[in-house]
C-alpha cells in the first residue's frame, strides 16, 4: 500500500473498477469425462479442486438464470439470488430495464441486501458503515461528515459490481459474469425452439405464481441437472410408488413411445419428451388441469406446430446448462445452486400462462407443491437418490470405480428434422453424455470460439421453422 514511500502526497488511489475473472484451461479435469467409453469419473462429484474449477470455468462464464420478469414488475422491485456461489441482487430500474449486481459492499465486502425479495426499494444501505447504493448500483453517499472532507475520495467510480451482461428470453432473465460471452440468444442457440413449448404456447406469455420454495439437498449439483436433462429412466423405479399413489397407476410414456419419444441436445442443454400430451400434467392430480392442457395444446398448434403442441403437458424434462431446469406439464422451474461439491440450495417456482383462469393457476401452484416441493412426493423420491449418489464417493476405493453412461449409444436419429443432436427414445443416456461433454468443454476451453464450436454445438442442418 505504500509503494513509493508513505510520506508523498500522491498515494496510489484504489482502482475500484469491477473485476471479471479470466477462464483457464483444465484438460486434466476435462479428461474426467471419457467420451469414447461413455464414462464419467466420480471425482467430478466430490473433488474440491474440480469444484473450484467449476466456479471459475462454468459459473463465472455461462449465462445463468436469475428471475422471471413477472417477479419484479415495478421500479425498485428486487430479488436476491445467486450465480454459482456469488450472491446477486436483481433490480428493476426506473427505465424498466433490469440490472443485477454482486450483493457485496465495495468497502469491506459486507452483504448490502439481507432480504430475499422486496418491492419499490429506494436503494441498498450497507449495514456496516452505512454506505448507500442506488437501485442502479452506484454509490449514492456515505457519511458526508467524514468522506466529504477527504479530498482524495472519489465517489463516482465506486459502486456495486454489475454482472457483465444481462438479457432475457421470453420472460426469463439471465446474466453472465463474462464480458466476452456470446449473446444469450447465441448461448441458448436453437434450444429456444424447445423452451418455447413452455414459454410461448400462448400469446400472452407466462408468469411465476406463488413464492419461491427453497431447500437444501446434500448432493452434487450435477446429479439433479443431469437427471432433468434426460433421465426419465429413473421414473419407472424411483417414482413408481408415488405415481401409484397419485394416479392409481404407474408411470406411462404413452402407447406411441417408439414412434414419438426422443431426446434433443444443444450446447449441453437438453430435453427428453414422450409427446404423450398430458402425462406430466396428470401427476399433479387435478382432472381440470388435464382438460386445460388438452385444450391448450389444441390451440397452440398454430403457434408451435403439431409436435411441440403435443409436448406442453407430456412426460418430459429439461435442463438449460448448467443448472436451470424445468418440467413441461408440471410447470416447475428450478435452479440447483452449487454450495460446495456435496451440497445444493434448490429454489423452485411455478410457471403459468398469464391468460390461464385463476383456479387453473391455483391448481398448478398446489399441484406443484404436492409433487415437486421439499415435501412433495416426487422431490423426496429424487433427493435421497442424489444424496447417496454423491455421498458414497467419500469412500476412497468407491470413488475409483467406473460409472456407466452408455444407454442408447447407437440411438442417434439423423432423419428427424429437429434442432440439435437428436436421439431416438427418451429412455437414453444420450443427453446426459452431451451434458458432461459440455461440462468437459467448459473445463478445457478458455475462449468462446472453441466453446461454441465443440462437439455439443448443434449440427448444421435445415433450419426448423418456428411455426411449421
Amino acid at each position, binding site marked *: 500500500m505504500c509503494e513509493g514511500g508513505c510520506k508523498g502526497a500522491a498515494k496510489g488511489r484504489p482502482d475500484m473498477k469491477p473485476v471479471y475473472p479470466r477462464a483457464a484451461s483444465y484438460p486434466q479435469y476435462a479428461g474426467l469425462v471419457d467420451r469414447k467409453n461413455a464414462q464419467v469419473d466420480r471425482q467430478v462429484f466430490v473433488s474440491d479442486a474440480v469444484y473450484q474449477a467449476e466456479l471459475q470455468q462454468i459459473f463465472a462464464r455461462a449465462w445463468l438464470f436469475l428471475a422471471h420478469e413477472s417477479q419484479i414488475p415495478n421500479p425498485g422491485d428486487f430479488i436476491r439470488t445467486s450465480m454459482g456461489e456469488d450472491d446477486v441482487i436483481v433490480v428493476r430500474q426506473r427505465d424498466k430495464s433490469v440490472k443485477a449486481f454482486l450483493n457485496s459492499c465495495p468497502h469491506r465486502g459486507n452483504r448490502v441486501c439481507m432480504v430475499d425479495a422486496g418491492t419499490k426499494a*429506494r*436503494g441498498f*444501505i450497507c449495514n456496516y458503515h*452505512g454506505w*448507500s447504493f442506488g437501485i442502479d448500483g452506484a454509490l449514492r*453517499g*456515505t*457519511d*458526508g461528515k467524514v468522506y466529504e472532507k477527504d479530498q482524495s475520495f472519489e465517489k463516482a467510480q465506486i459502486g456495486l459490481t454489475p454482472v457483465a451482461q444481462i438479457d432475457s428470453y421470453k420472460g426469463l432473465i439471465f446474466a453472465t459474469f463474462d464480458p466476452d460471452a456470446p449473446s444469450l440468444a447465441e448461448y441458448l442457440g436453437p434450444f429456444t425452439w424447445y423452451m418455447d413449448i413452455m414459454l410461448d404456447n400462448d400469446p400472452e406469455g407466462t408468469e411465476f405464481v406463488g413464492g419461491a420454495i427453497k431447500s437444501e439437498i446434500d448432493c452434487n449439483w450435477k446429479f439433479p441437472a443431469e437427471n432433468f436433462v434426460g433421465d426419465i429412466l429413473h421414473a419407472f423405479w424411483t417414482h413408481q410408488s408415488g405415481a401409484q399413489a397419485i394416479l392409481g397407476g404407474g408411470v406411462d410414456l404413452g402407447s406411441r413411445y417408439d414412434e414419438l419419444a426422443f431426446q434433443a441436445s444443444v450446447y449441453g442443454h437438453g430435453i427428453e419428451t414422450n409427446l404423450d400430451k398430458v402425462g406430466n400434467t396428470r401427476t399433479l392430480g387435478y382432472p381440470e388441469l388435464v382438460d386445460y392442457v388438452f385444450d391448450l395444446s389444441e390451440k397452440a398448434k398454430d403457434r408451435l406446430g403439431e409436435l411441440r403442441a403435443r409436448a406442453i403437458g407430456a412426460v418430459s424434462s429439461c435442463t438449460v446448462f448448467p443448472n436451470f431446469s424445468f418440467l413441461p406439464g408440471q410447470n416447475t422451474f428450478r435452479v440447483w445452486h452449487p454450495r460446495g461439491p456435496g451440497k445444493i440450495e434448490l429454489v423452485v417456482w411455478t410457471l403459468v400462462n398469464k391468460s390461464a383462469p385463476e383456479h387453473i393457476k391455483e391448481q398448478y401452484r398446489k399441484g406443484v407443491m404436492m409433487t415437486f416441493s421439499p415435501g412433495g412426493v416426487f422431490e423426496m423420491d429424487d433427493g435421497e437418490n442424489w444424496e447417496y449418489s454423491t455421498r458414497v464417493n467419500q469412500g476412497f476405493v468407491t470413488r475409483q470405480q467406473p460409472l456407466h453412461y452408455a444407454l442408447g449409444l447407437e440411438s442417434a436419429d439423423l432423419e428427424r428434422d429437429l434442432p440439435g443432436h437428436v436421439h431416438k427414445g427418451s429412455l437414453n443416456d444420450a443427453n446426459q453424455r452431451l451434458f458432461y461433454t459440455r461440462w468437459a468443454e467448459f473445463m478445457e476451453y478458455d475462449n468462446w470460439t472453441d466453446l461454441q464450436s465443440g462437439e455439443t454445438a448443434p449440427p448444421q442442418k435445415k433450419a426448423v421453422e418456428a411455426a411449421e
Partner: protein
Amino acid sequence: MMIELCDSSAIGEGEILRVDVDDFPAIAVARHEGALYVFPDRCPHADESLAEGWLEDGRVVCGVHFAEFELGTGAVHNPPVGCPNLSFFKCEDRDGKVFATLAGGPVNV
C-alpha cells in the same frame, strides 16, 4: 435581507434544485403543490446533499440513508439514529425570482 437565488421557473413541480450562492453553503430549492421551499443542501443526518434526494408525499427524502423531512415543519421521519429535524429559510417568489433570507441561518417557516 432577502437575496436572489434563481428564476422561479427553474424549479418544476416536485423538483429539488441545488443553488450555489456566494458566501453561503449550498442551498436547495424545492417546489411542492406550487409552493417553494428553501433549505440547506445538507442533510441534518450526515451532511449529504438533499438536492440529490427527491420529494415524495410532501417530504424531502435524503437519497443516502432515506431520512424524510416534512416540507414546512421539517419534522423528520424514518430517521437514522441521531438525525435532527430539517430547518428552512424564509423565502418568497418576487416577480418570477426566488428570494430567501439566508443570513442568520435557517428558521422554521
